[in-house]
């Protein structure tokens, strides 16, 4: 029984890591531009699909992964330049949501045109027999997911805390008007936030694809789950979003044996519950992207 519990925990942490990456993307874009980016899940899909496509074309996996992340970052840039750039500050928050919903729909449609409905596979980063620990069977890719997520979170932390761009991003999140007054180009920061969330999402997609399948419609559910995670964390709270992702993943991991069918509903019951009890997230309001 304990080994079962360990197994669910491992599955949950792997899932939760991906949710955490998606949630981080939500928080970054929301903090800097004020838009809830419903295209966030599509970045994960793009990462997985582009990598799968390139590997099939004969590219080595590391190269394909880098290209996939760059591709998704480019799409993030396009979402900003073609939609949000014109709208931020001019259109209501409702309008911004509509724009990102439009972008998500268009990206999904293009992916369907390009790749069709067939699911794609991606090889594991390091193929081999699964590991065993504490009675749980751990797929090697699961370990890679956790390592990759930790590495990305570390890099993003350094970017926010140790670089001039990171400080400017945090300034925009803290107070957009004040940031402009000290000469920060808010539109450029908006662009950077979308490029960053595109890249972070795509890393999640590349890491996830070997244990699930990659398909054009995987972004919808992942995006929704990441969104729930971000709300759990308080929407404008980056560490909270990561914690929210892990909590959600682990909850789902433990819910799987009870009913795999109702698993997807769980996230949203949690969401509604949190909104009733703690509408500003589990960890209270506003740590933001860190103090400026």
């Amino acid at each position, binding site marked *: 029984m304990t080994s079962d519990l360990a197994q669910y925990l491992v599955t949950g942490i792997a899932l939760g890591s991906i949710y955490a990456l998606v949630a981080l993307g939500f928080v970054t874009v929301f903090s800097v531009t004020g838009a809830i980016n419903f295209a966030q899940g599509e970045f994960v899909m793009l990462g997985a699909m582009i990598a799968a496509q390139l590997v099939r074309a004969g590219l080595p996996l590391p190269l394909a992964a880098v290209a996939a992340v760059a591709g998704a970052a480019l799409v993030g840039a396009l979402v900003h330049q073609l939609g949000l750039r014109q709208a931020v500050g001019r*259109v209501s928050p409702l309008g911004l949501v509509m724009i990102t919903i*439009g972008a998500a729909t268009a990206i999904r*449609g*293009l992916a369907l045109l390009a790749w069709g409905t067939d699911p794609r596979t991606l090889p594991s980063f390091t193929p081999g027999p699964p590991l065993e620990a504490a009675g749980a069977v751990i797929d090697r890719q699961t370990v890679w997911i956790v390592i990759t997520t930790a590495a990305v979170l570390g890099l993003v932390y350094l970017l926010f805390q140790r670089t001039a761009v990171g400080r400017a991003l945090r300034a925009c999140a803290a107070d957009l008007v004040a940031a402009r007054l000290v000469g920060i180009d808010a539109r450029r920061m908006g662009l950077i936030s979308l490029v960053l969330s595109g890249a972070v999402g795509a890393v999640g997609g590349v890491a996830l694809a070997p244990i699930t399948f990659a398909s054009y419609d995987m972004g919808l559910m992942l995006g929704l789950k990441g*969104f*729930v995670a971000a709300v759990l964390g308080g929407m404008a709270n980056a560490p909270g979003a990561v914690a929210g992702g892990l909590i959600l993943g682990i909850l789902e991991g433990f819910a799987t044996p009870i009913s795999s069918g109702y698993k997807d*509903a769980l996230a*949203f019951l949690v969401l509604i519950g949190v*909104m009733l009890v703690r509408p500003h997230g589990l960890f209270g309001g506003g740590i933001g992207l860190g103090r400026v």
Partner: protein
Amino acid sequence: MTRRDLILLGAVAAAILVAPVFASGYVLGILVTTGLYGIATIGLVLLVGLAKQVSLGHAAFYGLGAYVSGLLGTRLGLHPLVTIPLAAAAAGAVAYLVGRPVLRLRGHYLAMATLGLGVVFQVILNEWVDVSRGPSGFSGIASIAVPIPGMTRDGRTLYVIWAVALAILALSLWLVRSRAGRALRAIGDSEIASELLGIGTATWKLRVFALSAAYAGIAGALYAHYVTFLSPQPFGFVFSLELLVMAVVGGIASVWGGMIGAFTIVVLTEVLRRSLPSSLPGASGELELVLFGAALIAMVVVWPTGLAGIAASIGARVTPRLRRAIRPAHG
């Protein structure tokens, strides 16, 4: 309701009345679908346009209406005249229960809650097989076509659905100019200012949300009696999005916009489907998705008032010139 609204309502009613005589079954199908989606979209227009709240789960209310009416009819043998109002009440009641705690909060919490509701609804439809019959669905739902000899079923259904659609249009046009409409517009402009004026913001938002869900429930129930077969598949997140696209493209600030948006998107979808016959086998509607997405972005960025807004601004420019042309002496 203004005189112009009355004239337009009359014109639409007349067009629907003669449609079965002139139009083919294909065109009648488009008109029926427009009526169904239009009812649901008008509900969204009231919610989004007036109270500035988004529902990302309206497909669930539509589906709930469809299933309530369909199941009560097939299981208990109740008449559609009984089950359709019950379906509307059920959708409104669920919206009330979800909205009551959520709408006390300011901000976009309703969008999230309805998103969750949509997913939960899909899961229940697929998993609670004893009641919903699961993913394979069920058939044998009574038709609501009025018995007129010598007319096709499409035409006879069209009358019923548009009778309801026109009633909803009229009710909504009256509503936006009533005390409720003014209160909701005030809330949409500024919640804090409205509260200071003594408007119970939470109560009004809750009422319009429940009404909007009830509209979707009615539309869904009518849909069930039109297609006479139900499965969970059509009531997913994509349909919620599609309804939102209809509202935005038509114009979220106008009741007519809801109907215009529904008509535009239904026709656009059909045109795409016919002009790109199976260019890619295995999946239908790839380009639809791309174009819907692009249309949504373009509308918000370029014409935030939607097609109804464009029509109104053209009208405002043309009408004075027309008046001058007709009555030069009074110019």
